[in-house]
Structures are given as C-alpha cells and as structure tokens.
C-alpha cells in the first residue's frame, strides 16, 4: 500500500522572484517587463496603499460604508491584475476592489459600492467584471461558467476570480475548480491566503499543508506563490493566463500574504486573534518596501516619484468622494425599477404607492 500525501504536499514549494531585500533570487523566472511597466506597478501599489489609508479614514468619519482593508495584499491583488487583458473577466471578492479600479472602475463608483448605493455596481462597458461578491465562494463556481463561455465563443480571454484562505473551505470552491478543470476552461483561481478568515487561522480551516495542493484533486495546475512579491504573482498569473488561452486549462494560485489592517471596518479587533510578533514578522515582508528597494537599486524610483503618486492619489480621492456624495440618494422606486425587465402587477401597484410617498 502506498501513502502519497506527504509526497504530494512536498511538491508545493513557494515560488518567489524577489526576496525581502528586493534582490532577485530566481533569475530564470524573471518576467519580461519594461522599465515603464515596473514603474507603473510601483505607482499602482503606492496609490492603492494611499487609497486604503484614506478609505479607512473616510469610513471612520462616516463618509464611507462597508470597507475591507487591503494594505499588505497589494502584490497579490495588483500583480495578478497586471497580467490581465482588458477583455478578461474579473469575479472579485469583497476585498478585491483595487483590481476593479485598475481594470477601469471609476473611483467614485468604488466609493458608492462602499456606501451601499447600486450605482456603484453599474460598471462602465469596458470593465468586464462582477461587483465584489459578498457570499464567499459564489464567485468560484460562476468563474467556471464565464471561462467556459470564453471557450465556447473561441475568445482568447480568461476569467479570473479571487477568494481568501477561508473561502477554500466552501463547497463552491471545489465545485468551481472541478468544473473548470472538467471543461478545460480558461480560468484563473486566486486564493489570497492572508492566514486568517476574520479570526480563524488557516490551520483550523483545513489539514492541507498548502492551499495550492487542492488543485490536485481537481486535476488542474496549482502553485503557491510569495504573495508579497509582486513579480512572482505577476509571473505566475501570466503563465496561468498563457496556458489557459492556449487550451491547457485552469490554474489555482495560492498567494501567501497578510492583511495589515482589520478584517473590515465593522468592529473587527485583530488583537483578539493575532499576536504582535506575527504582525511584525509580516510587516517586514511588506510588498511595497521590497519592490521599492528593487526599483531603487535599478535607479527607477525615487522619493520624488513616490511623493508625486501620493499627491495624485490624494487628489483623485478628494474628487471622487465628492462625486460619490453628490450622487442622488436611492429611492424605493429606484429599487423597484431594478427588479425585473417588466414590472409584475404587485410591483406596479407598489411603484405607484412609493411614487406618491416620495413626491411628498
């Protein structure tokens, strides 16, 4: 009798290109990115960090609603998004607003989503994406469908989806990767393993040593990536995308990362479940620090560049929050109007009642 678990698990080693000091440790896999691309990635990460800080402040002032902090996860989020084409389709989770923004979601709409306003979800034509999923796992099964759709239409595009370590416990997670595998559909499944699902550590989520190895049961490729290394995340996603559109099927990518902030801004207190030691250990892996060192070494980034991005971000945010606040408040008649193509009689009656109420 042969017991294979240990063997299988040991195959999944963390893929890394830049170490914590910003030094290349894996020349062979260094992606083919121009200096402009490298600077653009840094610009996006800095901008997104500022956006996170400002969003937290705006939430505290009561000017934003639901918000799930992103600091720490920029490399996982933006490195993977940078590997996409505009026609690819994103199915994000609630923390994955930055990917949408860099794929073309206007900032003021991201703010409206946070405030709980449906206009935040009325995406521009060029953005092929769903609004952030709240039901954990739902996006994974849907991704198999979007990907199969691309395949049936003969498009050279991928569907990409995101969940967290906790999300891999849902049945939907397994169904999604299995369906996509069964159809060899062009899908990329990202798991941002930030070690905690609200308070529950990943060790309590599963007995698997890695989350990437869950791909084996579905018969698809899987890789564990240093999620604090933007080049590694980019390279892994690019490789997955190339194989997907080449007809080689889906990939599961686990990125090892950490959320520096609380789970959401709705009363979560990380000190109840995380130690300061662990926080400090991960702060050293900050994706911005590492990439900045790398770019500075190449003379591609300066304090001046950094300050320019910070100012740009702050300015954009100020304008966007103003625009979000100027959006007309939602009315019940708006909600009724969005229910069906043609209103059934019960809603027609209610529409009249609320129209009258709202006119007073």
């Amino acid at each position, binding site marked *: 009798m042969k017991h294979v678990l240990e063997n299988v698990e040991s195959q999944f080693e963390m893929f890394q290109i830049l170490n914590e000091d910003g030094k290349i440790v894996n020349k062979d896999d260094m992606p083919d990115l121009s200096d402009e691309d490298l600077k653009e990635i840094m610009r996006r990460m800095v901008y997104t960090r500022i956006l996170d800080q400002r969003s937290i402040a705006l939430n505290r002032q009561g000017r934003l*609603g*639901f918000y799930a902090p992103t600091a720490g996860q920029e490399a996982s989020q933006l490195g993977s998004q940078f590997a996409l084409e505009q026609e690819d389709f994103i199915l994000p989770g*609630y923390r994955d607003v930055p990917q949408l923004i860099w794929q073309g979601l206007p900032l003021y709409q991201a703010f409206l989503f946070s*405030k*709980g*306003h*449906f206009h935040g979800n009325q995406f521009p034509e060029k953005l092929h994406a769903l609004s952030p999923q*709240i*039901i*954990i*796992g739902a996006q994974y099964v849907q991704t198999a469908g979007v990907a199969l759709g691309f395949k049936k239409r003969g498009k050279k595009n991928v569907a990409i989806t995101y969940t967290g370590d*906790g*999300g891999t*416990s*849902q*049945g939907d997670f397994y169904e999604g990767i299995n369906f996509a595998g069964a159809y060899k559909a062009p899908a990329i499944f990202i798991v941002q393993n930030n070690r905690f*699902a*609200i*308070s*529950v550590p990943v060790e*309590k*989520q*599963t007995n698997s040593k890695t989350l990437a190895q869950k791909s084996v049961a579905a018969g698809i490729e899987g890789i564990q990536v240093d999620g604090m290394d933007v080049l590694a995340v980019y390279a892994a996603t690019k490789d997955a995308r190339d194989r997907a559109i080449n007809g080689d099927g889906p990939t599961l990518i686990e990125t090892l990362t950490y959320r520096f902030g609380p789970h959401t801004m*709705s*009363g*979560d207190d990380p000190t*109840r*479940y995380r130690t300061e030691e662990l926080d400090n250990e991960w702060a050293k892996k900050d994706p911005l620090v590492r990439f900045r060192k790398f770019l500075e070494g190449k003379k591609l980034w300066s304090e001046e560049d950094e300050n320019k991005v910070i100012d740009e971000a702050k300015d954009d945010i100020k304008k966007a929050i103003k625009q979000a606040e100027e959006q007309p*408040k*939602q*009315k*019940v008649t*708006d*909600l*009724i109007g*969005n*229910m069906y193509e043609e209103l059934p009689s*019960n*809603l027609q009656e*209610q529409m009249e009642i*609320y129209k009258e109420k709202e006119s007073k």
Partner: protein
Amino acid sequence: MAQMTMIQAITDAMRTELKNDENVLVFGEDVGQNGGVFRATEGLQDEFGEDRVFDTPLAESGIGGLAIGLALQGFRPVPEIQFFGFVYEVMDSISGQMARLRYRSGGHHTAPITVRAPFGGGVHTPEMHADSLEGLMAQQPGLKVVIPSTPYEAKGLLISAIRDNDPVIFLEHMKLYRSFRGEVPEEEYTVEIGKADVKREGKDVTLIAYGAMVHASLKAAEELEKDGVDAEVIDLRTVSPIDYETVLESVKKTGRAVVIQEAQRQAGVAANVMAEIQEKAILHLEAPVLRVAAPDTVYAFSDAEEVWLPNHSDIVEKVNAVMNF
C-alpha cells in the same frame, strides 16, 4: 435582577445550557476565540473549552451537516450561521435534512439542533447580510422558528430551543442586539415555544408583529393612544408554529387587525396570519385585515434601508385605515 442587552441574554442562555448538559456543543465561524462577530459567544470557549465551543472551517453547508452528524451521535448542537442572509448556503441541511430526520426515520432519529443566526436589517451591513428570511423557514414543515423581541424572552426561548428535541431556527434581530436593556433573571427559566405574548392590551384594534416590528408596533400604539385609538399588541415570538389561539382571541375582542412584518409583502408570515383570521373569525371583523410590510424588492442597499424598512408611521397609517373603514 440583572439588566441585560439581548445579546448578553443570548450568551447567558448558551452558558446555562452548556453547564446543564454536557451534550450541548456551540460552534460556527469565529465563535471560538473571537466570541462571534457580534460577540454572542463571548467568553464561552474560555469557560467551557475548545471541545465544547469551537470554530469551524468557513462553510455553512458544512456546519449544517456537522450539526446533523453530531446530533446522530447524541449531541445537542447549537450551530451559529454568522448572518442569516447566508442561509441559502445551508438550505439543504436545514430544510432538506434536519427538518425531515424524525419523519423519514419514523421517529428513530431526531435532530435536537438549534440553529442560531442574526437576521433582519437596519444596521447598515453590506449586501446579502441583512434580510428577513423567516418565511423560508416557516414554510418548511418539521422546523420550529423562534424570534425573540426582548432580552428576557431571548434567554427563556433559547433555553427552550436548546432543550427541544426537534430542530429550532432561532433568529436574533440585529437591531435589537444592543439597542436596549431589559430585566433578565440570573437563574435558569424557560419561555414556551409556540406561545405568543400580549405585549400591550387594548380594545380597538389588534397589532400582530414579531422581532423588531414589535417595538415599532408598541411605538405606533402609543401614538395612536393620543388619537383615542386603543391598540392591543401581540408578539408572536414563534412564527412556526403560530399561536393562533392568542391571535384569534384578541381579534374577536377588537374586531380589527393589522399584521406587521419587516419582510417583504410577498415573504414573511403575515399572509398566513391574515388567512387564518379570515378563516376563523371573519364574522367578528369590522374591517379587512391589513398588513404592513417592506416592498417586494430584494433587500434594500444599505444606503436606502431607512426608507425601505417599514416603521411605526406605516403602522399608524394602516391602523387609521382599518379604524376608518
């Protein structure tokens, strides 16, 4: 007597039953060390250990299935669904499986499970967290569905639910968790499942409500009193099975009724109550039975919750309509 919020009363009920019966197990997402996202299980893991109070992996269908399996092993599971808006993930375990265990096995197996969950709206949660899905549960034969409106009842009803040998869905309105305190005895006591409570006596009209709408109804009743209308307010407390005896007795006395629910008009349990009244008491009625409910849309985006949710003014308006019929 201690003054407690509803959430403290709920914790107290679980503590009481964890102490009373070693077969009681409390589990769910974040209920252990973290004490639950609303802190309903605060301190319970420290007090009773990880064997009795524990975190599960993140999967509602897993939680439901685990509860059934543990019940088959003689335990009394008290799983938490973090928000009842996620109940669709565990519908088969609840409505397909636990509700039918006794029936399918001719009484050989039972499911003494209490599924606890926060529900209702008005606290600006993100999409899909808030909703009033009690109607989905109430229409499933085999389940009991309990909705407390005060801290006192929350403790007594939850203890009854945990001791019940059939599955109970115990829904805790999020807005009531911390909005007020009430007297709660420190010792154990039970409140009977399936019994409504007359929260205010009156002779002109019967207001029938449950959950947060009980408080809106009481507020409406106060306002109506100023106009000389004396409203009786009934808190159903259990929406399956419904205590029609108390409802009918009141309606026969007042001759008028308004049924109030936070759920959409096409959802909830108001329609059942109205149907029963007209079947059993039509000759006592002075006016049609009216209802107050939310419009038939998906639960409102948080920015529009306040205008979407029914409130005491809507109740006053409907009461005036039945009074002036």
